[in-house]
């Protein structure tokens, strides 16, 4: 950098979101508004069986009687649910997903190329791009491509859009859908159950270790639409899988709603590692635009010795409302939550986890790192609940907050409820600031102010970042740097 750091920082701050472009493709979009007819429209578009339409209708009726939650430490004007479209699909793609990449609109392929998401298996196999990641690419309301399906089928693994799973594996979907997050669970989960469009379905058969990372990349493109994806991952006895979710959206002045539901089920000795790098458009410096990210994620450790871990790096969205949780039902099951949440400018995040201990000798770990800059508000909200049945349960929680500047806020709301005297629960919390001494020390050694900040932040988040698959950890650290650009100087 030949420029002075201060002006370089300002320059970077004026173009903070790299993924804000719009793809120009003709799309098939539902008229604005939400009613039972909207659900019928979606269901027909997707050729769904009638049980699913009934499930949607039940969810919708529940939703109409529910109130939007207001207990989170976030503020936003009332959402007009009738002003959005609940279905948008690029026209070129058939309703149930194209058969090969040649059927996909080249504009869409270019979009994923621009986002750095590998969709061409040949190139991946030839070592042109990072290997060993299978991708399901969801564009607005539909999945446009899923890679490595054949390779995975050899191991008996199912990895496909959930709309396809509904048609091909109806019994399995019916058995698990809504079994972890019931339709009436909360306002946004009920909304999602009514209008969900696509997302991924994963099934790992008994004893199989998934040979590659599975990932889904969500892209919101169309205007005035929300994205309501639904992901369901089932790991059968002794199976294991690592799954990664990524996302981005164009830069728009209006707020867009993203209300997803993710359900994980781990049977005896199974393990699921779920990682998220959340990079939805955060809005501009003054808080105009950005995604409202209201997401319900929950994993059920149904089997003995099963394991579920959530790792999240949250850098985007105007508002994040998200509590990936674990229900530790099987004896000796293990839950983990590793989180980095970054807020800058006018962003608001209320995120955390719930660990519900039911089985004996269940264990959970929570490591939460909150970083606030600008005028943002960043809250950790956590519940550790130990039922009477959970003898020998253990939890360790650690919540660290890092402040950059004087105008931001960090808050923690940890709740511990234990009905089991033999349980052991530990909670540690800290709040610190990036000190002028640290920055000067790094810069004296030759680092630019931005690199110095990225290094210090990376150190603060290390325990979480090291939980991510290697190639994503590098990406995530870069993303943290980008998210905080312009917050020093």
């Amino acid at each position, binding site marked *: 950098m030949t420029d002075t750091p201060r002006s370089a920082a300002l320059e970077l701050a004026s173009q903070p979101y790299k993924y804000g472009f719009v793809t120009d493709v003709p799309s098939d979009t539902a008229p604005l508004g939400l009613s039972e007819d909207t659900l019928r429209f979606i269901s027909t578009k997707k050729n769904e069986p009638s049980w699913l339409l009934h499930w949607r209708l039940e969810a919708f009726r529940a939703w109409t009687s529910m109130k939007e939650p207001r207990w989170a430490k976030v503020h936003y004007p009332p959402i007009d649910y009738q002003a959005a479209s609940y279905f948008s699909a690029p026209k070129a793609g058939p309703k149930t997903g194209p058969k090969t990449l040649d059927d996909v609109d080249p504009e869409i392929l270019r979009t994923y190329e621009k986002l750095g998401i590998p969709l061409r298996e040949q190139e991946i196999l030839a070592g042109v791009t990072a290997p060993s990641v299978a991708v399901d690419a969801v564009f607005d309301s539909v999945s446009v491509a899923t890679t490595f399906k054949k390779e995975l089928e050899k191991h008996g693994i199912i990895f496909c859009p959930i709309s396809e799973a509904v048609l091909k594996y109806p019994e399995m979907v019916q058995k698990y859908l809504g079994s972890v997050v019931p339709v009436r669970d909360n306002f946004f989960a009920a909304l999602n159950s009514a209008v969900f469009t696509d997302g991924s379905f994963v099934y790992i058969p008994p004893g199989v270790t998934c040979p590659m990372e599975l990932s889904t990349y969500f892209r919101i493109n169309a205007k005035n639409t929300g994205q309501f994806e639904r992901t369901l991952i089932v790991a059968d006895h002794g199976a294991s899988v690592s799954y990664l979710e990524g996302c981005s959206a164009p830069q728009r002045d209006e707020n867009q709603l993203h209300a997803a539901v993710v359900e994980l089920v781990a049977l005896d000795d199974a393990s699921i590692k779920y990682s998220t790098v959340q990079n939805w458009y955060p809005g501009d410096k003054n808080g105009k635009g950005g995604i409202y990210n209201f997401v319900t994620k929950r994993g059920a450790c149904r089997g003995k010795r099963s394991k579920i871990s959530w790792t999240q790096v949250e850098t985007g969205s105007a508002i994040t409302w998200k509590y990936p949780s674990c229900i530790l039902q099987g004896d000796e099951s293990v839950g983990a939550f590793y989180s980095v949440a970054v807020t800058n400018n006018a962003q608001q995040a209320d995120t955390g986890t719930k660990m519900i201990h039911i089985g004996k000798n269940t264990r959970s770990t929570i490591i939460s790192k909150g970083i606030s800059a600008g005028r943002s508000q960043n809250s950790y909200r956590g519940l550790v609940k130990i039922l009477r049945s959970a003898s020998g349960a253990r939890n360790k929680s650690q919540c660290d907050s890092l402040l950059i500047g004087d105008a931001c806020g960090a808050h923690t709301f940890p709740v511990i409820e234990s009905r089991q005297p033999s349980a052991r629960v530990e909670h540690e919390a800290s709040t610190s600031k990036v000190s002028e*001494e640290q920055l*000067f020390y790094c810069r004296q*050694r*030759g*680092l*630019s102010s931005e690199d*110095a900040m990225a*290094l210090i932040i990376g150190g*603060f988040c290390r*325990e979480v970042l090291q939980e991510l698959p290697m190639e994503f950890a590098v990406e995530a650290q870069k993303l943290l740097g980008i998210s905080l650009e312009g917050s020093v100087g």
Partner: protein
Amino acid sequence: MLEIKNLHVAIDGKEILKGIDLSLPDGQVHAIMGPNGSGKSTLSYVLAGRDGYTVTQGSVTLKGKDILSLSPDQRAAQGVFLAMQYPVEIPGVTTMSFLKTALNALRKARGQNPLDALQILKLLREKAKALDLSQELLSRAVNVGFSGGEKKRNEVLQMAVLEPSLCLLDETDSGLDIDALRVVANGVNALRAPSRSMLVITHYQRLLDYIKPDVVHVLAYGKIRQSGGPELAKELEKTGYAAFAREDA
């Protein structure tokens, strides 16, 4: 190497340095001695470019180029290195990765290719060994949980790795026992070179038994009051700084 002319520096409007003149030729080691509060640390911070110090008058050039207009990292790229009196902790960042990032940032600024992890590892091991620093320390977070001696040796390690042309050593002897002092001094002496100059800031003469300066300056109340050979340090050891009472009091 370094030319300081009539340098006046204020902190929050209060003048701390009141006209410093100092000329440090290539390859020489100069010591700056003086009582507490004389402005010794201020001088080192100003030269390194820390925020909060306002230069009200004067100039500083390094190899003929003005450095006062440069940011701390740009000065580092020009070859300025400050071994700090109180090295800073950076939790979660290993000494190894800290030095890798720093060295490659400097190499980039100097138009050199970056070194890969393996080359860095080899370099660090070699340099750490010379300073009697354990390998294990390289994989620990920067200065976190380091003893006073380890912190100071880590500063010298960084100096050895980053190969600056101007080394500023701010009270490098403070908090060191005699054995640690010897190790640190040996490390510094090993770095003496015709193309490298050093400014050694110290309160006590002790350090100068090990790092032999070419010139000793006495800094008191914001000005250089006296300059001389190494014998001046010995004299001060006997007489103290009482002779340099405030002139402006």
